[in-house]
């Protein structure tokens, strides 16, 4: 009997271990595949051409700079919009709203997060883009800014949901202690609760940005897809072409094994590296903060 249970435990344990390691294996396999399909580019196209300013693949102009720049502008714009709105919403739901409002708000925000991106893109194309053109007086409403606004709308639910959980997990005794020392509600939130939930809040922001940089459909529909290098602040209000939209728009019709096909995979590698770096930075910061808070608490 005892023997039997041990055996069962061993099976379950190794199964769990296998699923755990399989995640690493899948990421590694994806990366190997990307490398296999993307690396031939460095033989077919001169590396200098990849750093060119012109993306026009059907005439062999493979400059990646406009695409990388486009993705960065849209993502940074989205982060700048999503962070204040998302954090403020999370703080309101976790700390200020009465119980009933909280029970309505949180599920509502999470439903918003489930909106399919193509629906959001369509909405953006028909309503947000004309609004941007008329209010900001830009030549067209299909700009990086329009994309940023919609991506922020997509990132906010994720951000709010995770940040709210982190704020909620801060022990009540922290707030009680702060209030007992005579701190106002705002001081308690800003100086005690938010710093205590820092790592969770940071994870929330990173998850939100991660959602923004990989998003394709919405961006393809509202940013105009003009491959020009963003120059300065004004570029936020000009059309851009992102890496994700380029892959999505061109992969369907490209000849398998051509230089153009390999370049699209190279864009995939760049995208993979960027999100890898974002995640790595986030987890290092979170990890360091954990150690520090553990030290403080012990």
């Amino acid at each position, binding site marked *: 009997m005892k023997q039997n249970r041990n055996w069962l435990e061993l099976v379950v344990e190794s199964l769990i271990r296998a699923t755990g390691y399989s995640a690493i294996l899948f990421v590694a396999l994806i990366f190997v595949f990307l490398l296999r399909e993307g690396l031939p580019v460095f033989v077919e196209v001169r590396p200098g051409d990849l750093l060119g*300013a*012109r993306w*026009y*693949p*059907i*005439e062999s*102009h493979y400059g990646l700079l*406009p695409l990388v720049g486009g993705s960065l502008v849209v993502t940074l714009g989205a982060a700048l919009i999503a962070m204040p709105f998302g954090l403020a919403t999370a703080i309101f739901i976790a700390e200020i709203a009465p119980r009933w409002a909280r029970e309505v708000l949180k599920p509502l925000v999470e439903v918003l997060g489930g909106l399919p991106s193509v629906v959001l893109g369509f909405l953006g*194309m*028909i309503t947000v*883009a*004309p609004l941007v*053109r008329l209010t900001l007086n830009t*030549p*067209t*409403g*299909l700009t990086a800014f329009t994309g940023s606004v919609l991506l922020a709308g997509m990132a906010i639910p994720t951000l709010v949901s995770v940040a709210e959980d982190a704020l909620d997990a801060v022990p009540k005794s922290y707030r009680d202690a702060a209030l007992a020392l005579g701190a106002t509600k705002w001081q308690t939130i800003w100086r005690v609760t938010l710093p205590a939930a820092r790592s969770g809040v940071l994870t929330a922001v990173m998850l939100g940005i991660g959602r923004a940089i990989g998003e394709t459909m919405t961006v*393809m*529909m509202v940013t*105009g*897809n*003009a*491959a*020009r290098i963003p120059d300065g602040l004004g570029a936020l209000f000009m*059309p851009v*072409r992102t890496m994700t*939209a380029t892959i*999505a*728009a*061109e992969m*369907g*019709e*490209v000849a398998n094994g051509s230089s153009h096909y390999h370049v699209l995979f190279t864009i995939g590698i760049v995208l993979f590296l960027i999100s890898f770096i974002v995640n790595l930075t986030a987890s290092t910061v979170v990890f360091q903060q954990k150690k520090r808070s553990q030290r403080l608490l012990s």
Partner: protein
Amino acid sequence: MVNLALAWAEAYGGARPDVRLSVTGGGSGTGIAALINGTVDIANASRAIKKEEREQAQANGIEPVEFVVARDAIAVIVHPENPIQQLTLQQLSAIYSGQIANWRDVGGQDRPIVLLSRETNSGTHVYFLENVLRLGNSKDKTLFSPDTLLMPSSEGIGAEVRQNPNAIGYDGLGYVTPDMKTIAVSAGEGQPHVLPTIATVNDESYPIARDLYMYTRGEPAGAVKAYLDWVFSAEAQQIVAELGFVPVK
């Protein structure tokens, strides 16, 4: 043109289970090469057969017979409030290559021009590049301005043209709706400006139009002849119109 060939094959094959039609894409050159090698009965092409290709085929004992099965016209569209009525091909080339960036320079209001185009993988994009931007000169290396917005769909172009008075776009005649304004185009200074309609496309007075061809190995006979007769029938030409091309009958 592969869409049209597929739609035809589907409609024809669906009604006649005894005929087997298979359609392969790859571009006009691929189709004509397959005809020369004798591996296909019909080659679809969106350009006319070249002299060398015809000679190659004759050397293989095949006489390609040409049929114009449909036409493809590209309409230039703007917002209904745009006062511009007409443009020449040269003006369109200058606009799309970025040399003219304000409507004022072609006689319109003082507004920036927002260029709309289909994605580079669309046949319409390539046709427009070769025949409008480069004016049919194969040595010309003019490219679309980098500020050109590349829209993933016809609907994307339509939505922007409908709501943005700065915009100019182009698309197959079949995608033009009454809430956009179609520009009359002339082949050059002093030539008449013509609006794209089925009539002006068929009498070849509208300059941005091309024929879509089918080539057969010798005079068609048997199943191939039956299929070609059907292609010119009202039913098949109705499919042409549905796909945004111009029927020949």
